[in-house]
Structure formats: structure tokens, C-alpha cells
């Protein structure tokens, strides 16, 4: 009578039929594990605090890391202009200077990774007279998206809107120092009239923003107005392309040259990329990412080792209990689930605590930074916390649980 299985014994009527109470047994095991963790809470309190704090830190780092990333993206980019590519046609000896055709610009806008394209016309050494004094400056005819591409903001008044461009209105924006020179003060300049080649332009605003420092002595007109009214204004020979991210810069720069040469004559084309700032920005960002991911890794590993350690110690310390349960008819899987549930109880409750703590931390930091916590933060944190807890619990609890379940009854009972 070799190797009888459970099924055959049940079929013979030697053992009663399976009662189909698997679910009940599961819920009982879960209840017992939970009770066990609650009763032995002193043993778990250290590791629970570690995991909770780790999770809270993790959530804060991840959330704030995103904010940090966004801030870095803006700030570093504003300083270095790392994602902006400039394309110019140089003046050619004897030849006419080339300019960008509308078809070319349309094609450039369609290059993957391109966020915005803006064009400008330039005139050097323009002059104006105000109260019988003559002032010289450089003049730029610009599109509406010129401002957003370079992250310019109005310091006073406003910048050009779509109507200014499409209707070719006689308005202008001034650099801060130029406004001060002519009108005495930048804020006083808004609303004044600027005389330029016998045309009067209303000053609607003063340019501001991080990159405005090298534009303080310039005047801006809508590109359409400049084209129609300013003599000696240049052709459309300068183009600026802003890429979505730093990683897009190299491929866009390559595609840009190819696109321009396919669509039009490209004599004297010069493409400028700020490779050096780009490298620096990427380096800084690499360090930030490293820091973030190292923190995540450290939390996972530390919490995991804590639980693993406790569970391994528990398996040894509870050898008799395991033997007793097996003697009462616990299957290997019953013991496995009980220990795994205990590990999961610890990780889940500490992760939930950590999520709550992390939320408080993020709210507090957001309030002190004056930013808004990201949309759906709670759901994301909760999900991340639960996944984290499951991974941690299974990862660190599985091996000790398997070890416990494989124990022989008699070894466990003879153990002192």
C-alpha cells in the first residue's frame, strides 16, 4: 500500500471529505497572525518605527523630489538656457543673407522633442529722441511665444499678446535700464510714448525674469509691426527652439540642421547649443536622482533586513509552537501563511502609518514652500505604500516562513 495521497484516502472514505472551508481557515489564520503581532508588539515596535519613518521619508523624498526636479528644470534651465537651441544665418560676403521660410519653420515645429519655436528680427543702433535727448539702443521684433520660450515675465505692465502681433499694433516693451534712461524710472515708463523713426509706440510693459539681465538695454516691437514700420530691420534670420527636456537637445539639434537643409538653401547656417551648461545641468540632476534612488533603496533594504531578522529569530524562538501546531494537524501551508501574514501585518500597518506621517510631512513642506501638493497625492502615496509593504513583507517574510513550515514535528517538539 504505497504512497497514498490525501485524495485517495478521502475517496476510500478513510478520511472525511474536504469541508471546503479554505476561506474560513484563511480568515482565521489572518486573525491569529494579527492577534500575534498585536500581542508581541513590543518585539515589533522598533522595526515598525523604522519602516514607518522610512516610508514617510520615502514619500516626502519622492514627492518633494518631483518638486525639486521641476524647480531645477526651471531654475537651472533659466540660468543656463540648456534646452534652448539657436539657429542663425550669418551675413555672407557678397551674397544676400539667408532667412527662414515659413515652410521650414512649420517643419521644425514638428520635430519630436521640440516644445516651442520662435523667430525674431533684429535692428542694431536704433535711436529715439525724448525731451530733446537722443538715445541709442538695439531693437528686436518678436513673436508672442518669444516670452514663454525664454521664460520672460512682465516686470511692469504687460508683454505682447496675440492681438498685438496679429494686428501689428504700435506698442513696445522696454528693457529696464533703457526705460530708466529715457523715462527716469521703469514703472513710470509704462503708458509713455516712444518715438521711433517718426512712429509713436505705446510702452506697454517692462521685461523681467531671470534671463532679462542681458536684455536691459533693448526695446521690443511685435514682429509684424517691426517688419512693416522699421526700416533696415533684418530678415527672419534668427530662430530659437526650446526642447521638452535636456535629453531632447542633442537629437533635436541634429534633426534641426537636416530639416533646414532639406527645406531651403542653408548657406551660412549656424546652430548654437549650450553644451557646457547642458552637461552641468545633467550632472547636477544625476546627483539628485542618485540621492533620491539611494534613499529609496536604503529604506527598502533596512526595513526588509529588520523584518527578516525578527522573523528568523521568531522561527527559532517559536519552534515549539510550530511543532505543537503541526501536531494538532496544521499543514505546511497553514504555518507558512501564518508567518507570512505576520510579516505582512507588520509591514502593512507600518506602511500605513508611514503614509499618514509622510502626508503630514508633505503638507507641511508644501505649506512652508508655498507650493501645492501634487494632484492625487493621497491615492499615489497609499498605493505606493501598499505596494511597498507587500514587497517588503513577502520579500523579507517568505524565507523564514518557508523554513518554519518545513520543520519536522518531532524536531520542533524535542527542541528546548
Amino acid at each position, binding site marked *: *500500500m*504505497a*504512497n*497514498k*495521497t*490525501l485524495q485517495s*484516502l478521502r475517496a476510500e*472514505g*478513510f*478520511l*472525511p471529505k474536504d*469541508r*471546503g*472551508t479554505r476561506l*474560513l*481557515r484563511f480568515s*482565521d*489564520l489572518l486573525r*491569529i497572525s494579527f492577534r*500575534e503581532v498585536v*500581542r*508581541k508588539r513590543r518585539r515589533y515596535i522598533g522595526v515598525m518605527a523604522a519602516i514607518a519613518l522610512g516610508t514617510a521619508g520615502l514619500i516626502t523624498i519622492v514627492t518633494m523630489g518631483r518638486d525639486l526636479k521641476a524647480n531645477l528644470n526651471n531654475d537651472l534651465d533659466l540660468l543656463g538656457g540648456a534646452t534652448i537651441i539657436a539657429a542663425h544665418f550669418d551675413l555672407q560676403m557678397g551674397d544676400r543673407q539667408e532667412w527662414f521660410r515659413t515652410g521650414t519653420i512649420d517643419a521644425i515645429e514638428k520635430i519630436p522633442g521640440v516644445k516651442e519655436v520662435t523667430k525674431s528680427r533684429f535692428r542694431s543702433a536704433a535711436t529715439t529722441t525724448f525731451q530733446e535727448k537722443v538715445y541709442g539702443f538695439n531693437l528686436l521684433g518678436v513673436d508672442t511665444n518669444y516670452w514663454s520660450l525664454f521664460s520672460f515675465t512682465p516686470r511692469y505692465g504687460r508683454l505682447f499678446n496675440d492681438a498685438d502681433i496679429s494686428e501689428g499694433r504700435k506698442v513696445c516693451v522696454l528693457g529696464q535700464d533703457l526705460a530708466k534712461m529715457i523715462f527716469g524710472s521703469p514703472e513710470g515708463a509704462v503708458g509713455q510714448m516712444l518715438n521711433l523713426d517718426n512712429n509713436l509706440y505705446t510702452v506697454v510693459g517692462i521685461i523681467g525674469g531671470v534671463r532679462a539681465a542681458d536684455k536691459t538695454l533693448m526695446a521690443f516691437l511685435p514682429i509684424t509691426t517691426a517688419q512693416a514700420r522699421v526700416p533696415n530691420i533684418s530678415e527672419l534670420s534668427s530662430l530659437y527652439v526650446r526642447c521638452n527636456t535636456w535629453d531632447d537637445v542633442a537629437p533635436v539639434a541634429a534633426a534641426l540642421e537636416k530639416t533646414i537643409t532639406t527645406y531651403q538653401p542653408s548657406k551660412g547656417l549656424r546652430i548654437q547649443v549650450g553644451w557646457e551648461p547642458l552637461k552641468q545641468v545633467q550632472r547636477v540632476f544625476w546627483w539628485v536622482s542618485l540621492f533620491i534612488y539611494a534613499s529609496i533603496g536604503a529604506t527598502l533594504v533596512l526595513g526588509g533586513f529588520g523584518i527578516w531578522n525578527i522573523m528568523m529569530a521568531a522561527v527559532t524562538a517559536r519552534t*515549539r*509552537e510550530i511543532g*505543537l*501546531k*503541526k*501536531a*494538532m*494537524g*496544521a*499543514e*505546511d*501551508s*497553514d504555518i507558512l501563511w501564518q508567518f507570512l501574514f505576520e510579516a505582512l501585518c507588520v509591514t502593512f500597518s507600518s506602511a500605513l502609518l508611514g503614509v499618514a506621517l509622510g502626508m503630514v510631512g508633505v503638507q507641511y513642506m508644501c505649506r512652508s514652500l508655498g507650493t501645492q501638493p501634487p494632484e492625487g497625492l493621497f491615492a499615489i502615496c497609499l498605493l505606493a505604500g501598499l505596494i511597498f509593504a507587500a514587497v517588503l513583507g513577502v520579500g523579507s517574510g517568505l524565507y523564514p516562513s518557508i523554513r518554519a513550515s518545513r520543520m*519536522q*514535528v*518531532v524536531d520542533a*517538539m524535542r527542541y528546548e
Partner: protein
Amino acid sequence: MNNGHSDRVIDIRHLSKTYASGSEQIKVLKDINLEVNRGEMLAIMGPSGSGKSTMLFILGIFQPPTSGSYTIAGVDVLNLNRDAQAVFRREKMGFVFQSCDLLENSTVYENLELPLIYTGVKRHEREHKIMEALQRVNLEHRVRQPSNRLSGGERQRVSIARALVNEPEFILADEPTGQLDKDNSERVMDYFVKITEEARVAMVIVTHDAATAERCTRKCLLSDGVLKPY
């Protein structure tokens, strides 16, 4: 269960057990033959260290013998897989340990509930079964007591009640009355005799106590690894 020898529960042939202790081989059981039928209560006596607990552990399928065969109701239990052995234990067998092990940090109720959980007894049926088992050992009033606040004798009685709660057909008890006073000891033995006669349970009891042994239907002596009628 009705396969030829309807009353035969335990059938052991040429069973021996050798422990390896370092380089030494300790022969604890030598060529044991044993039969126990339904309605029979077998007392095993013998000096300390003679292998009585070893014998019970083998009977409970907690450890395999070194050689020999062991069938329960005609089923070769040594060749069952681990899960089948576990199911067999909880459906058919009750075991009282010599050390009266209870789950620590648990109440009497929780200790008795565990076998019912493994057997899959529905929650609302548990309380009744537990109280009934506790009544048999005169301990209903201790049902909510934590196990580590029980006296030695109370622990022993809880451990007996736990072995009975599933109404097993086959009970193995290692010195079940060792720590009990005369009254409680008699009460437990009364019940053992009752279920042996009425429910036709098969029982093997290891004991040092002559009075306990006297109430069994058959007595054996284990010494020098050999089991003899006594």
C-alpha cells in the same frame, strides 16, 4: 474503515528506532510488534528514558521509525505525504504531550480553538465544542484565562481538553495524569474509559501511575527497547 479487520486500529510490525547521537547509535526500540483495537485502552509503562515518548511520537506520525511497518486502520501511514499526515492527525487523532505544551500568550479558549480552525469547524459551532471539552476536565470557569497564568495541573487538563475537542477516534497521551490530584485524575480516567467503551475510541496512554494503568484494558512494559505484556 471496514476493510476486513474492522476493529483493528494500530498494527505495528518489527518496528525499531535508532537515534544517532554523535558517533554512538542508541537503539531505543527493538523489533516492536503491537496491535491496538477499537474500544481498547493500552497502558505503556517503563522506566525513564526507555523510549515511551519515542514510541508515542512514532504512533503520532511525528517521526518515522528506522525500520518496520505501521498501519492505522489498514492504511500505511508511513507512506502518506506530509499534507495527508496533517489531515490525518487533525481528523482522527488527539495527542496529549508529556510537557503539556500550550500556546503561550493565548487564552484557554484560543488553545482549544486551534484544532477546530485546522479542521475547518464553523465559528458558531466552536464555542459549544470548546465548552464541552472543558467540562470534561472540570475547567469551564478558566476559559478566558491566559495560558501562562494556569497551574501545572490546569495546564495538563487544558492540554487533555484540547486533544479531545475534535472528538478523535485515536488518542495518544503521554503521562496525562502525571500532575493531577486523585480527584481530577479519576475524573479524566472516567471520561477516557467512557469514550473508549461508548465511542469505541482506541487509546494509548503512557503512565507511571499504577492507579491510572489499572483502569486500562491492557498493560505493557517497555524496557531495554522491548515491549512485553505486563
